[in-house]
C-alpha cells in the first residue's frame, strides 16, 4: 500500500515509496538519513522537528509524508550554503546560544523562516516566532540575542 511521492529536500529531488501512515519526520530521518531534524514529542508540542515546507515552518511530525508530496522542503542540513554558515547559525555559535543542542535545529529553522519574511523583526516578533520551539536549557535569552544579531548582520 505504499505510495510514490516526490519531495524536494534541500534542493535535491527524491522519489520515495512511503506507507501512508508515516510522518514527514520519519521519512526525513529514516529514508533520507537527515537526522538533524529531531523528534522531541511526536505530537507537535515541542518544535524540535521543524522544517521549512514551501516557505512556511511546520512541525514535520504533524505532516504525513504523503501530504508533503510535491513540496519543497528545507531541513537544518540545507541551511548553510556550501561551507558557509547561515548568519543565524553563525550567530548561534558566537553567542553560545546552544546548550544540549536538541532544540537547536528547530530553533534555527524558525529563525531563518522569520528572517526570510521579515528581515528586521522586533524582539517580541522573534520571541513569537520561536514560541513553538521548546528549549529546556538556555532560557531562550541567548537564542533571541543571536537572532537579533543575525538580523543586524543580514541587513548589511
Amino acid at each position, binding site marked *: 500500500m505504499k505510495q510514490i511521492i516526490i519531495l524536494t529536500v534541500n534542493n535535491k529531488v527524491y522519489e520515495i515509496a512511503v506507507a501512508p501512515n508515516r510522518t514527514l519526520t520519519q521519512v526525513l530521518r529514516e529514508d533520507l538519513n537527515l537526522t538533524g531534524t529531531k523528534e522531541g514529542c*511526536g505530537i507537535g508540542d515541542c518544535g524540535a522537528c521543524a522544517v521549512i515546507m514551501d516557505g512556511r515552518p511546520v512541525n514535520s511530525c504533524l505532516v504525513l509524508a504523503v501530504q508533503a508530496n510535491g513540496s519543497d522542503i528545507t531541513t*537544518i542540513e540545507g541551511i548553510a550554503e556550501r561551507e558557509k554558515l547561515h548568519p543565524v547559525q553563525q550567530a548561534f555559535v558566537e553567542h553560545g546560544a546552544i*546548550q544540549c543542542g*536538541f532544540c*537547536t535545529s528547530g530553533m534555527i529553522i524558525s529563525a531563518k523562516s522569520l528572517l526570510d519574511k521579515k528581515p528586521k523583526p522586533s524582539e517580541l516578533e522573534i520571541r513569537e516566532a520561536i514560541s513553538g520551539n521548546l528549549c529546556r*536549557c538556555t532560557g531562550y535569552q541567548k537564542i533571541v540575542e543571536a537572532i537579533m544579531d543575525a538580523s543586524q548582520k543580514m541587513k548589511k
Partner: protein
Amino acid sequence: MPAVKEIDRIDALEKVLGATLYAGDMYIEGMLYGVIVRSTRPHATISKINIKEAQYLEGVVKILSCNDIPGKKEFGIIKKDQSLLAEKKVRYVGEPVLVVVAETERLARKAAELIQIEYDDIISIHDPFTSEKAPVLIHGSGNLLSHRTVLKGDVQKGFRQSDVIVEHTYRTTWLDHAFLETEAGIGYMDNTGKLVILTSTQNVHYKRKEISRILGLPEENIRVIQATTGGGFGGKLDMTVECYVALAVYHTKKPVMIRFTREESFLSDTKRHPLYIEYKTGARRDGKIQAVEVNIIGDTGPYISYGETVCLRAAIHATGPYEVPNVHVDSRMFYTNNPISGAMRGFGVPQIAFAHESQMDEIAYALKLDPLHVRMINGLKKGSRTATSQILEASAGYIETLKRLEPYWQGRKKLKGRGFGLGSMFYGIGNTGITNPSYAHLSIAENGKIALHTGVCEIGQGSDTVLLQILCESLGVDDKNVELIRGDTDTSKDAGSTSASRQTYISGMAIYNASIKMREFLDKEEYYKGRGLKDIFLTYKEKGVPVFEGFFDPPTTALDPETSEGKPYATYAFATHMTEVEVDEITGYTKVLKVYAAHDVGKAINVRNIKGQVYGGIAMGIGFALMEEFRPGETHSLDAYYIPTSMDMPDVEVFIIEDEEPTGPFGAKGVGEPALIPQAASIVNAIKDAVDVRPFELPCHIERLKGLIESKTSK
C-alpha cells in the same frame, strides 16, 4: 576579569549544522528495537502474563522477562532495591515488566500492546502522611525510607529569645525534567566480543557497573560510551534504557536500540520530590534570626533512587544562606506507590529555598524591616558557622550578592499590580558528606595533540568547553592542540556523575592536577622553547609515551548520624535573585518582567556558559513557581506539562561575583543548580509584594493565585 581565556563552545558548530548524532539518531545495519512493557497498576502482584499473541507476530524476535536476567536482578544508583523487570510484584504505574524486541520499532510497540498482564491489586499508598502507619508495607522494611536530623544549639532557648515567631507550611509537587531529548540508547557486540552501549547519560562508569551486575559479566567486557546528550537535569543519572538495551543485545547478539516516546519518558522518568515543609522561624526585633525549626515530609515513591540524598540535602540546606544559632531540622522520606522521585537539579534545595525565603520575607514584614537588610545581617560569610557547624573558611560571597543587587533593590519603583521579590540560596558543591573523586589523565596522541581523557559527561551545560579551557590555561597550550576524549569507559577513568554542580570544581581540579605534572614534563622536553608535540611523541613512541594522572576528591567529612555535624561539602555557591512581576488580579496570571541574578561562582571560567546556566535556571525556576505540575496518571505529554516558552521569559541581568575558592581550579566552584534554586522563591516574594497574598503551595498557577486573591478580597 575571567581567569581563563574564553573559547566558543566546542560542540556548537556541529550542533548548528544538525550534524551531531544523538543516540536515537544512530543506525546500525540489521538493528532491532526494544520496547518496555510497563505496569498499569500502582501496587499489585502479577498473576498471569500472556505473550502468545505478541510472540507469534512476524518480526518479533524476543520477549524478555525477569527470568532472562543472567546476573543480579536488581539495580539502583544508591541501593540495589529496584527490579530490572518485575518478578511477582509491581509498585508503581510504569514499572517495567517485559522487554519486547522486534525488527522494527512500530512492530515492537504493536507487540507490546498485545501482551496481557493480569494483576491482583494490593492496597496502594499515595500519601506520605498515611504511609508511615499504613497496614501495607511497600517493602518488607517499613515505609519510612530515611529520617535525618540537623541539630545545633537549643531551639527552644532560641524561640524564647525571639521577639517575633513566624510559622508556616509549604508544599511542592512533582516536576518532570522534560529534557528535549527523551531517554535513548543503542547497543551492539563489537568484533572483540565486547558489549558496547551508546547512551544518553550523565554517568558512563555507573552505567557500566549496573550492566555488569545485571549480565553477570566482568566490567572489562562492557563499554559504555556517552552519546551526545540532549539535557539531563538529574533525570539521566539513574539507569534509564542501558540495562534493557544490554539485556536485549546479550540475548539476540544483534544491535538493539531503545528510545522512549515522550509518554514513556513522563511515565518512567524520576520526578522532583514533592515536599511538605513546616517551618518556624524566631527573630529578635533587630531582625537577627535566633532559631529555626523545620519539619520536612517527602514522598519518594516506591524505590530509593536518590531519596536519601534529597532527604539529607534538604535538611542541611534548610536554614538557607544564613547563620542561625539554634537549629532543629527533621527530614523524613516515605515510600508510596506514586512515581519514583529522584535527582532533579538541586536535590531538594529548590523546594526548601521556597520555604526559607518566604520565611525571611515574613520575618521582615512582621518586624517592618527591609527584606534585603534582614538577609544582610543574617547572611553567611567567611568565619560563619553553618547549621552543620562547619566554619566557612573561604569563598563565601553571599553578602556580595546582596550588595550587588542593593542599588536595584533600593531604586525599585513599585507600580500598581507589580511587585519585587528577593530569593537567596547557598548550595554545597558535590556529593554530601561522602567521598566523590574524579580522575583524569593526559598524554600525547599520535597526531601530535595533547590527549585529555576524562569520564565527565557533557549534558549541554558546557563541561567539555570548560574542562578544555582549564587544561589549556594550566598547561599553556592552545585548544587546537588538544584532543578531548571523554565519556567513554574504555578510554577514561571514573570522573563521577555530572550532577551536584560538581564537574567544573572536581573534575576541573583533577585535570588541573594532571596538567601540573605534564607541564613539568613538557618543560623538560623543551616544548615551551618551541619543540613540537609530534617530535616529543616520536621520542617516546618506542618506550611508551608517559601518562599523567590527575585526581581530586574534595575534602569533606562524614556527618554525625544524630546531629549532622560535620563538613558535608568542601565549598558552597551563593546567589541572590531579585525579580519583578506583574500580576493580573482578575485572572491570577503572573508575568515575570525582570530578573537580576547575582552569583558567587568562585571564579568564572566561561562567562557565556555561566550566563547560559543562569538564564536556563531562571526558566526552570519560572516553571517551578508558576506552571509545572506533573499529575500521576494524567500527565502524558508536553501539551499537559507546561514548561516556559520564549514568551514567558523576562529580561535578565546576570552579575558574576568572584570570591575565589582556594581548592578549585583557578578558584572556580559550580553554578548549574544554583542558577535555578533561588528563582521560584523570588517570584513568590514578588507576588506577595504585588497583590499582598502569599502562595504557600507551588506551582502558583493562574487558578491557584486567583483563588488566593479572591479569598483575600472576600475577607
